């Protein structure tokens, strides 16, 4: 089967709201995305531009997030995590697929129709230096959501209350962003995201620019706020320790595809997709005397999303596929057919033809 044919079919029969539910999955999901795809065209020519190729940033991604839950999204750089988040908030238009927020289909809403939904869903950015306007005071930055949504009444007391809540001194209302440290700036970002009391906050690598001691403070703040305001998070990070700490449920992405979804403990104790297993074994354990497990070193780099491999996107680097084929190439179905995101064990979904067994240790791939 050719790749084009396989990608046009939905890769899973499971409705998104049933993929690997956590204990917090009660009632209706807050956000659902179905078969979401985003391709960025690459154009050539000066006057008559024609599309010569496309970056397959997000390919047929489905998931749901329930109220009060934290969904972690992990993967290496360039795997489509941030694009997924941006498409979910409709900061970028999807190529195809469906996005539902609180039961309402928002896929085809225009900018004005999106306004009421924007109050419910906010975003936190990675870089605390680039995401705050250097020419505005903290009061203006945190008060901006009130102005944009034309809320009546004096903003200052509300802003100061928010500042106090996220651990900033309300007397610093008139200071500028450069007067704050990285951790404090990230708190400003939290206060801004929180201003309109949203239901969903999309956090795109919110702690990766911070030192470890500060990172822990900000992570604790996220947890406190979730308890207090009943927030729902989509938490993106490449740091597997951080994601495990904060998430109820985790989706692993590779080259635009979601390859595995499970609850945090299940995913880390019992990874089913060979990519997840390799990713977890690559993390330095930071502990002396811990049981020495063989580290699965993946050879090579992530392939280009302009020219993704046929079949399973992971097959050129997959140690398990080589094991199954007995050292000679990879099995045919890995090479030709895209595996569906199916339930491998109870409440644990993975897109792999040959999921990793619980006791199995992947052979250490030889250096290329």
């Amino acid at each position, binding site marked *: 089967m050719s790749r084009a044919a396989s990608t046009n079919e939905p890769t899973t029969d499971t409705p998104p709201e049933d993929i690997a539910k956590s204990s917090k999955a009660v009632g209706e999901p807050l956000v659902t995305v179905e078969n979401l795809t985003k391709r960025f065209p690459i154009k050539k020519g000066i006057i008559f531009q024609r599309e010569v190729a496309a970056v397959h940033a997000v390919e047929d991604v489905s998931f749901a997030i329930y109220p009060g839950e934290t969904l972690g999204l992990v993967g*290496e*750089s360039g795997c489509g995590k941030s694009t997924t988040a941006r498409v979910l908030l409709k900061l970028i238009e999807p190529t195809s697929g469906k996005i539902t927020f609180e039961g309402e289909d928002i896929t085809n809403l225009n900018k004005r129709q999106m306004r009421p939904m924007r109050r419910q869903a906010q975003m936190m950015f990675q870089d605390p230096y680039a995401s705050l306007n250097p020419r505005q005071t903290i009061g203006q930055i945190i008060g901006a959501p009130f102005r944009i949504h034309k809320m009546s009444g004096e903003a200052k007391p509300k802003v100061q209350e928010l500042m106090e809540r996220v651990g900033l001194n309300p007397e610093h209302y008139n200071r500028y962003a450069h007067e704050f*440290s990285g*951790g*404090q700036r990230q708190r400003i970002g939290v206060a801004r995201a929180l201003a309109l009391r949203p239901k969903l906050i999309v956090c795109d690598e919110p702690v990766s620019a911070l*030192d*470890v*001691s*500060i*990172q*822990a*403070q900000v*992570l*604790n703040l996220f*947890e406190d706020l979730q308890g207090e305001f009943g927030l729902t998070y989509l938490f993106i990070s*490449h*740091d*597997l*320790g*951080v994601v*495990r*700490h*904060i998430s109820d449920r985790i989706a692993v992405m590779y080259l635009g595809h979601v390859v595995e979804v499970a609850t*945090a*403990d299940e995913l*880390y104790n019992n990874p089913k997709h060979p990519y997840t297993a*390799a*990713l*977890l074994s*690559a*993390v*330095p*354990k*930071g*502990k*002396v*005397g*811990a049981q020495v497990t063989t*580290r699965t*070193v*993946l*050879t090579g*780099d*992530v392939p280009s999303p302009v020219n993704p491999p046929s079949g399973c996107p992971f097959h050129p680097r997959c140690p398990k596929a080589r094991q199954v084929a007995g050292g000679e190439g990879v099995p045919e179905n890995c090479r030709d057919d895209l595996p569906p995101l199916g339930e491998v064990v109870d409440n644990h979904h993975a897109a792999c033809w040959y999921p990793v067994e619980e006791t199995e240790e992947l052979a250490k791939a030889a*250096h*290329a």
Partner: protein
Amino acid sequence: MGEPILEVKDLKVHFPTPDGVVKAVDGLTFTVHRGETFGIVGESGSGKSVTCLTALGLIKRESAQISGEVLFEGHDLLKLSNEDLRPIRGKGLSMIFQDPFACLHPFYRVGDQIIEAIQCHDSCDKNEAKNRTIGLLDAVGIPQPDDRIRDYPHQFSGGMRQRAMIAMALAHNPSLLIADEPTTALDVTVQAQILELIDHIKQEFNIGVILITHDLGVVADVAQSVMVMYAGRAVEYGSRDEVFSGPLHPYTWGLLESIPNIDRKGGRLVPIEGAPPSLIRVPTGCAFNPRCPHRFDPCDKDRPELLDRGGGHPEACHLRIEDKKRLWNEREAGRVEVAS
């Protein structure tokens, strides 16, 4: 462990600025041996990088007040003139930088940049240098090196660029390799490849490696000795096993506890309160005292020296050794309880 190759004695690097003197490094003493990976850990601004840049003579002497000694193969690197330093720098002592995207010149082919590094110290002809370059790229695991030397840096991925930087650093079989955050800009799977490569090179050529990082996990995985830095000074210094299984300084405890655990879903994280101090106004006494949960009487008056107080390895904290052991055991027990 082999003979010492780099000895740093009471190194101080102070930068005068209009706002006051920045004490980036303030009295640092350590020794790196042959065949050892020496990890320097600390948060941003703790003086890790400045230490190594000073050793290589990459800090302008006019802009900083530098004192102390850096002994390498019988020379005090701080006293050598730039001309005398040149035969050593890049030959006996070489460095890998953090950002592989910024360290290769985008206009020159990767191969030519390595050839240049070879011809800098060896008067060999271009052909021989080219053959050595191919050998080096092969040694660091770049596939088809005879084709890839004609590539430009933008044709390499992040991991491959870091490999090319390592190849360049190895061009003259240095006896000491300084790696300043070599994997911070890379993904975990590529990080694992690069760490494995550095370890392999260390064993094959029996050289010393200084690994600067903020990631305790990396240090625990590959280093034999560890020095923890805070505000320009070492607060704890010992073998990896000593530091990780029986840490004696409250700052090291804080660092270890603030990392989310990948092996189990822990309870609440225990962050270190406050933020690192400004290096212009370092707190009096112990620099860590305003953030330390265990501070007592002498902490804000006397600066604790880096001494072995009976715990097996040197640390800089006023607490009695029995108290430290008790406190660490209590903290560890508390964490296990929360997790279970």
